[in-house]
Each structure stands twice: as structure tokens, then as C-alpha cells.
């Protein structure tokens, strides 16, 4: 089923759907919601076609389509996917409908604009994952910023303007450096190739030949931009503000997908294009990642706001992913890829659950809770499963990713020391501390706050949103092969690209 236009359909569906949505009268809020939901579900179905048509035995890009866009500069509309992007595309198209359903009652002003922005955001996110041209990638990367800026700025909490401006400018600042590097690389490539080119496949051959010092700078420029997005310590401070102030749907999408774009960029661009630089910087970046793991966990422990706690936990989790990427072994990278999906599911679930309870009590302060296990048992159970997934309990999805990452980094020839893994593994202790402590203060104990007595348990709609996520949490935990085998060849190819075009030996 290799229809080469399938990816274009994937991108067009939410785009056209969003444009059509603009024609609906803004009074018909329910129609808008259903229409938006239908569009996102159709996008999900299109992505399923991608999944079933994908050949896991090949490591090359599939569903490739190339259309010359700016001929003079050899910039083309070049799209294609491999195992890694496929998993992330599925994650995106899976989470978006769930997010729309979860905001059914939560967003009740300017519903039309909201749904429109969510669909445009989806276009941006999917575009990032399918682009095989650096310029096209950059366009989609920036496109995704604008709807997010509006979503946080209009429907967010009290300090939403500060948070959304901070998010936008911080991320864009990084992207500009990346643009410089893209242009630099494309100009450099015009030497060997004979023409200015931003095509990724061509640049894969050129990138590793860039002289060492220049390669270091290019790598840093790209990595800086991705590091802001990940977020990598110490470039993470936009995240707590953005997450806390964003509406639930915004937080879920931000955590589930947007953060993955940073790590995806590292795997897709930084490592294969600049392998020597990547190996050179791997120890330093791994140290930052490990600091992120421990620091994120410790700071999460002392937060008083539930959403901020989960936001800092994202910093900790993505520290694991970055460590997995820069350990550059098969196990650690596979672990990193699957952990990207896992984090999307478990942190997405946690944000959805925080949103559920916020809708009822309009407070996220942990101290104002306590004893809700008696009052809303179903919620408590689902929160427990999501927390355990985030802690990395074996049998649930988080463990698979964390274990593979730690195992891979222990035997990494690039890092070449046990100490990275020792410190990173201590993160598993701290994760249990902050999540269980939060869970205990919110769910167990006595009901101290009389305002809580009237809260209702999860409605059918809310349970319906959580169930698919829980199913995947358990599925990936018990039988991850379904997902690991999708990405395994592609991960192997990236590792090959890192190790083989070496003029000098690795440590």
C-alpha cells in the first residue's frame, strides 16, 4: 500500500479540515467540536494506513514524495517516514482526538478558534515529523509555534501572557540559530554537490565531511535549538510556566508531542548529519541530561502546584531520553524512541487527570486536596496507574524505556563510564519519591477540605479519554515488541550513520 501521496493527505487532512472549520458559524459550538473531532479522527485513520503499509524490514525512508518547490535553491517539498517518525506520527494523531474530547467542557469561549488552532498545530507537528528537507522542516517547526502561542495566551491561566511570550521567544531564539546553521550547511554543500541544497538525503552524505571545527558549531546551533525544545537543563525554564498556564489540552499536546520534536530533531538531524561532533559532545550533553534527571526530580518534589510538578517530571523523563540518544548504542536508542512514546502517554495521562480535577475544584494546589480516594475512587485508581507508569514500574510502559536506556548507556562506548548510568539510575528512586508523595497528599489521608465533598467522579467521557491511553500503557509494558520492531531498523540505521563515516576512531 505504498501510496506516495499518503503523507501529503496526512498533512492536508487537518489543514483543509481547519480551513473548512472556519466557515462554520461560531455560534454552533457543538458542531464545531464534533467537526474538529471528526477531522482529527480521520487523520488518525490516515496514519493507521501508514502503519499498516509500513515495511518494518527496510531501514530506508518510505512513502517518500518529492516535489520541487523553490527550484533555484533546490528546496523541495520532500517528505518521507521511517520507523521513528512513524511511531511519533501515531502518537500525535492518537493524542489529538483525545485532547479534543477532553476539552469538550473545559473550553467554552472561542471554541471555533480553539479547534482551528488545534488542527493547525497538528499540521505543524505532523509536518515536522515527515519533512526530509531542512527548509521544509524549519517551516513546519516555526508553524507549530504560532497556534501554541495563541492556545496558551488566550485560554490559559493567570500568567498566560508571560508564559506564552516566553515560550514563543525562547523557542524561536533557538530556531534562528538553527536557521543559520541550515543555511551554512546548505551553502557548504554547494561545494561538493555543485548546488545549494537543503535536501536531507543529500546532506546526509555531506554533513559528516564538514571539517571538525565547523561541524562542532553547526552541531551546536542545531542542538541548541533542539535542546531548548526538549527541554535540556539549563534551558528548561520555559516549560514549567508554559505547562502551568496552558489549558489542559495545550499542556497535553505540549508534553505529549511538542517536547518530542526536540528529541526527534536530535536523532534525525544532529546525529546523522554531524556524527563526529555528536560523539565529541556526547559526554557533555549526557551530563546535562543526567543533571536534568536528578534536578528535575528534586525540584518536582518540592512543588506545591500539581501541574508544575508534572512539568518538572517531564524535564526528568526527557533527560533519560537524551541520555539514551547520546549513549549511541542500539539498546539505549531504542529505549529512547520508545520512551518518547511512553512519556507522551504517561505524562499526557497525568496532565489529563490534573485537568479533570481542576475542572471540578479550580485549584491545582496539592495542599488543598487530601482524601479524595474515598470520594472519587475511579479517578484515584487511574491516577495510580498513570503515576506508576511514570515511576517506571516493570509491567508498565515506563520501565521498558528506562531500562533499555540505562542498560544501553551502561555499555556505551561513547560514554565509556559506569558513572553516567549510576547517577541516571538514581533518578528511579527520586521519581518514586515525588510521585508517591504527591499521590499520597492528594488521594490518601483524610478529607481536610470541606469543598471537596461535593466533587463527582469521572464522567463517561473522561473515562473514555483515559482508557485508550491506559491500554497502551499496559500493552507497551507487557508486549513492547509491537512497537519496538517498528523502529528497530531505523534506529540501527541512525547508529550506523553515527559510527561508520568516521575518519578517526571512537574512544
Amino acid at each position, binding site marked *: 500500500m505504498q501510496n506516495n501521496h499518503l503523507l501529503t493527505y496526512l498533512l492536508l487532512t487537518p489543514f483543509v479540515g481547519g480551513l473548512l472549520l472556519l466557515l462554520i458559524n461560531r455560534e454552533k459550538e457543538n458542531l464545531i467540536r464534533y467537526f474538529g473531532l471528526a477531522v482529527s479522527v480521520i487523520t488518525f485513520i490516515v496514519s493507521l494506513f501508514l502503519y499498516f503499509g509500513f515495511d518494518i524490514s527496510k531501514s530506508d525512508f518510505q512513502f517518500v514524495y518529492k516535489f520541487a518547490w523553490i527550484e533555484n535553491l533546490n528546496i523541495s517539498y520532500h517528505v518521507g517516514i521511517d520507523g521513528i517518525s512513524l511511531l511519533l506520527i501515531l502518537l500525535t494523531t492518537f493524542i489529538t482526538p483525545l485532547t479534543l474530547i477532553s476539552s469538550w467542557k473545559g473550553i467554552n469561549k472561542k471554541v471555533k478558534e480553539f479547534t482551528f488552532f488545534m488542527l493547525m498545530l497538528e499540521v505543524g507537528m505532523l509536518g515536522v515529523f515527515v519533512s526530509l528537507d531542512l527548509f521544509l522542516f524549519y517551516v513546519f517547526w516555526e508553524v507549530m509555534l504560532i497556534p501554541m502561542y495563541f492556545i496558551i495566551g488566550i485560554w490559559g491561566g493567570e500568567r498566560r501572557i508571560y508564559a506564552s511570550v516566553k515560550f514563543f521567544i525562547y523557542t524561536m531564539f533557538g530556531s534562528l540559530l538553527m536557521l543559520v546553521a541550515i543555511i551554512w550547511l546548505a551553502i557548504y554543500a554547494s561545494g561538493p554537490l555543485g548546488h545549494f541544497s537543503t535536501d536531507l538525503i543529500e546532506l546526509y552524505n555531506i554533513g559528516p565531511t564538514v571539517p571538525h571545527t565547523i561541524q562542532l558549531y553547526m552541531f551546536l546551533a542545531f542542538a541548541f535549538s533542539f535542546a531548548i525544545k526538549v527541554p535540556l537543563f539549563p534551558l528548561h525554564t520555559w516549560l514549567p510556566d508554559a505547562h502551568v498556564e496552558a489549558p489542559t489540552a495545550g499542556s497535553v499536546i505540549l508534553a505529549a508531542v511538542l517536547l518530542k520534536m526536540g528529541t526527534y530533531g536530535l536523532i534525525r538531524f544532529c546525529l546523522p548529519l554531524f556524527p563526529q561532533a555528536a560523539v565529541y559532545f556526547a559526554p557533555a550533553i549526557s551530563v546535562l541530561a543526567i543533571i536534568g534527571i536528578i534536578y528535575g526530580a528534586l*525540584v518536582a518534589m518540592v512543588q506545591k502546584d500539581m501541574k508544575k510538578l508534572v512539568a518538572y517530571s517531564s524535564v526528568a523523563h526527557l533527560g533519560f531520553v537524551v541520555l539514551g540518544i547520546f549513549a549511541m548504542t*542500539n539498546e539505549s536508542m531504542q529505549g529512547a524512541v520508545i520512551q518518547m512514546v511512553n512519556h507522551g502517554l504517561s505524562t499526557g495521562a497525568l496532565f489529563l487527570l490534573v485537568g479533570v480535577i481542576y475542572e471540578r475544584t479550580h485549584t491545582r494546589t496539592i495542599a488543598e486536596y487530601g482524601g479524595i480516594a474515598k470520594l472519587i475512587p475511579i479517578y484515584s485508581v487511574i491516577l495510580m496507574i498513570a503515576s506508576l507508569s511514570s515511576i517506571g514500574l516493570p*509491567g508498565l510502559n515506563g520501565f521498558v524505556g528506562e531500562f*533499555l536506556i540505562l542498560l544501553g548507556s551502561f555499555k556505551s562506548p561513547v560514554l565509556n563510564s559506569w558513572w553516567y*548510568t549510576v547517577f541516571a539510575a538514581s533518578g528511579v528512586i527520586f521519581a518514586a519519591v515525588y510521585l508517591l508523595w504527591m499521590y*499520597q497528599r492528594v488521594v490518601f489521608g483524610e478529607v481536610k477540605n470541606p469543598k471537596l465533598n461535593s466533587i463527582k467522579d469521572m464522567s463517561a467521557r473522561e473515562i473514555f479519554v483515559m482508557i485508550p491511553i491506559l491500554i497502551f500503557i499496559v500493552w507497551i509494558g507487557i508486549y513492547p515488541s509491537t512497537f519496538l520492531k517498528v523502529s528497530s531498523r531505523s534506529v540501527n540505521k541512525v547508529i550506523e550513520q553515527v559510527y561508520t563515516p568516521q575518519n578517526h576512531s571512537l574512544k
Partner: protein
Amino acid sequence: MIQLIYLTILLPFVGFLFNGLLGSKIKNEKVIGIIGSGVIGISFIIAIGAFFETLNLPVEQRKTIVDLFTWLSVGGLNIHFAYQVDQLSLVMALVVTGVGFIIHVYSIGYMHGDKSFWRFFSYLNLFIFAMMNLILADNFLVLFLGWEGVGLCSYLLIGFWYDKKFEKMTTADAGKKAFIVNRIGDFGFLLGMFLIYLTFGSLNFSDVFSKIGVLNISQSVFNFIALFLFIGATGKSAQIPLYIWLPDAMAGPTPVSALIHAATMVTAGVYMVARCSLIYASAPAILTVVAIIGALTAFFAATIGLVQNDIKKVLAYSTVSQLGYMFLALGVGAFSAGIFHVMTHAFFKALLFLAAGSVIHSMHEDQNIQNFGGLRKYMPATAITFLVASLAISGIPPFSGFFSKDEILWKSFANGNVIYWAIGAVTALLTAFYMFRLYFLTFEGNSRFGKDKHPHESPKVMTFPLIALAILAFIGGFIGIPALFSGEGGNAFENWLEPVFKNAQARLAETSAYGHSMEISLMVISVILGVGGIIIARNIYLKKPSIATELAGKFKGLYNLLWNKYFVDEVYDATVVTPIVKTSDSFLWRITDAKIIDGAVNGAAAIVDRVSKNIRKIQTGVAQFYAIIMALGIVLALFWIIMSL
């Protein structure tokens, strides 16, 4: 039956789902209880069947692997959900399912009337599921799955009554402490696993153990592997320094204490070290560490148990102490003796806890032994079974505890050195003493409780399990009668387990320089110590209780130290917990994140702001000003052009 062994794991999981999802709808306690206990009962029968099947196999073929499906296959890592049925795992399986079944039945009575009755059985079944995964696993990762799974169930069950207060904290706090301290141990276990994978290229038991003699591996690698794994064991099996969670775990319902914190979960560490006997045999230095920690823990915990007044606390410290004995046994290379003690300990400790539960129930949740006394006339069955268990734990023949404890003491003398034996012997004295202090203060003597308490015997559903366990505690030792008594056949239990530990024993190459006469003399000494402890306890607590208060007064400092459990929790809190929390709050968050890092970000924005505020002042709005600037610019440009010509 062997091929059906996976059912022993699957059925409890089905029970968990059934009671978990439907339990709150089924209001009938009998149904929930029968399903919950029934699945364990069936698992027990399957285990028995597998045992007899294995017995019929020739000795070399007694290891069967039942492979279900692939769990993780990434790079060189190939992990299946596969289970190993061999002599060691069968012993553990029989103990877990057998004692587990008995405790499930007991719980039907104990938890009667609880509004979360269904949730209790659901969690208990989940626990058995995880525990069976642990002991039947054929690779380290599935073992770890069970390892963490039992930790989770422990957390859920300790905090089962989640709105109940427990000493200065809540039950949820106790559960959280258990989980986190266990996690610290798991951190060590993970590192051990990584090192194993790095060294052997596999996490499969068969692969790893078969490569030990073959590959050329440095001593330090073995030492690290053994040490890391042992750190995990100290967490799970409550040894120094990570035992602190076990006494607080008594916050949970008593059947939980019996099942998890006496008979099964805490023995997981012992099982793991025994399973990895070949690794430990290759790291004798660490084996010494194991023995030392085991001996010290045994003694240390026994001293704390001497002065506690909460019946469950005494039993908790007793468990820590007995676990120390098991590790002492492993540490001197007596692997099967350690496992033997696991088995007998499961019998008598579970019995002690269940009987204690019976007492607590009838005394309306009062757990202070100073408020008991003379309960034997009200609860004869409980009293007699408690007595049987106390005799067993004190090592009085012919009860089971005598055989297992004696084996350990003998081996620690013969394979280890006299110091190990001395510590073990003194601890045996202390054990007998505190156990009978407990017995006399609770069941004998004058009643010290008020008129409001009406103690009564527990219903049959609770006393029958007690009797069953008492029988096991009585006869359970006979399968481990030492070679001394049983002739050329040797110790039957040891023989059964011998193939599992054969390679390890060969490596350790211990030679027993002592003969049978030494063994008999040591045996006699330990019996004398046990009886002595009983007599001293009787004289103090039955005859003249004032001696106790006098002694406490005379040795006030020591008494205080023991009563406050050597202030270990307070020390940990002050040196580890509080500093970390305070640093994270005041330094890491408020200063580093909010002021420094975010300050840099906001500062950058502020700089841009200030600079532009100043630059915009050029736009004065006065046209002449612009004209002046233009004129200056033209002059400068002309000047530059003319100069460069």
C-alpha cells in the same frame, strides 16, 4: 503439570482482575473470598503436581523451562516471559502458594465486615502473581518485574486503610517509606543487572551461570555484581542498612504482615542470592559481607525486639532478625540451610502474625501487650498455636525451627568462624527470650485489660489456618533432619536442593574440619540457650514482673536506646531526608531555578527591554533633529568616500 506452571502465575492475576473490577459490585464476601483464595489453592495444587512430576525425573533433568512469549528483544538483549521449574523454585512456589492459601482463607475471617473487602483480596492476589513471577523467572528481568511488583503490592497493602493514622504518621506514609526504601535497593539491583549484561551479554540465568566458569572475568567485576545485587537484597529483605521500612510496614492489616512481611516478599532477597549462588561463590569477599551483615542484623534487630510493647513490632523485628540468620547461612555458603530456614520461618512466623491478628481482633484493635495478659483461657486455640510457633522460633526440638536454625548455627561455625556462631547463638538466646516475653505477657499471668474488653476465640475460618500452620511448624522440620540423625541418606532437603547449589559449593570448596561430635555439642548448646531464654522470660514476666521495670530503671540509657530502635530512623531523617528536601526546596528550586536560571532568561529579556528603551529616545519627533543627524551622516559618508579615493 510442569508445563502448566504458568497457571500458578496467571490464575492469581485473573483473581486480581476479577475481584478488582467486579468486587465492588459483588456484595457477597463469601464469593470474593472463595475466588480470591480458590485461585491460590489451585495454584498450590498445580505446584504440588509440578513437584511430584519433577521428583519423578532423574536428578540431572530436574530443570524445565516453560517459555511463554518474548518480552523484550532489542540489540543483544533477548528476554522472554519464561519460567524455570527446578528444585529451588519449586520449594519457594510451594511455600508461597501453600502459606499464601492459608493466609487467604484466614483473611476471609479477619477482614470480615471491611468495606473494601474486595480490594484487599484483589491486592493479595496481585501480590501472589508478582511473587510467583519473581521465584519462577528464568531471567533477571522477569525476576525484577516480580521484585518491583511485590514492592508495589506491599505499598498498596500497607496503606490499605488509607485514612488511618499510624503512630506519628499515616499508613500511607508507611507504605511510601516501604516503596522508596525498596527502590533504593532496586537501584543497586538495576546496576547489578546492567553489569551482568555487560559482562555476560545476557540476563538469562542459564546463559549467565553457564558462562561463569568459561569466560575470563576479573574478580572485581564479580565483586561488583554480587555487591549490587546484594544491595537490592538488603532493601527487599530488610537487612542493615535498609531494614527501616519493615517495622513501619506493620501499619498494614495483619494478614498482610503475615504474608508479605514474614513469609514471602521479604524472603525474595534470600531467594535471589541463593539463585545467584554461583555468582556469590565467585565473589567470596562479598559473601563475607553478606554473612557479616546477616549476623549483625540478626543480633541488632533482636535487641530492639526485647523492649517493644506492640505485639506486631516485636514480630517485625523478629522477622528482620530471622532474615539475618538466613543471610548468615548464605554468607557461609550454606545455601540450602538458608532456604530451609525460609521455609520453616514462613510457617512459624506467618502463624505468629496470624495468631497475633486473632488477639488484636478480639482485643478490639489494641496492640499493646502491656494491656493483655491471661488470654489463654479466652482464646485457647490461638494461645496453643502461638506457643507452638514460639517454641519453633526458639529452636526447641522437635519443632521445625530447631532443625533449620541449628543447621545455620552449625554451618556458620563449621564453614565460617566461631564469631559468627557466637553472634548467632547469643541471638538465639535473645530470640527465645523476647518471644516468650511476648507469649507470657499476652497469654499467661493476670489479665491486665479493662472491663470493656471481651476477648473471645476467633471464628473457625481463622483458627483452622492457625492449626494448619501449627502442624506445619511442628513437622516441617523433619524433611531437613541433618545427616547426623538420618543416616546415609543425608539431609533430605539438602539433597533435593543439591544440584542447584552444586557448582557454587564446588567453588567455595569448604571443608568441614569438624566432626559429628562438634555438631552434637553445638546443638546441645543452642537448645540450652533456647530453653534458658524461655526460663528467664518466665521468671521475669510470669513470676516477678517488677524485675523488668527495675532493670529498665537501672539501665535507663540502654533501655531508651533500644526502645527508640537506636534512633536509626531519626538519624536517616536528619542526615538524608531532611537535607535533600530542604536543599531542593530552598536552594534548587527557589534559588537556582527561579532566581538564577530563570533570572538569566528574564534578565536577557530585561536587557533587551532596557536597551531599546534607551535607543528609542533617538526618535524625538523634532524634524530638525532628524535633519541634523542626516546632515552629519552625509558629511561622514562624503568624508569617508573622499578619504578612500
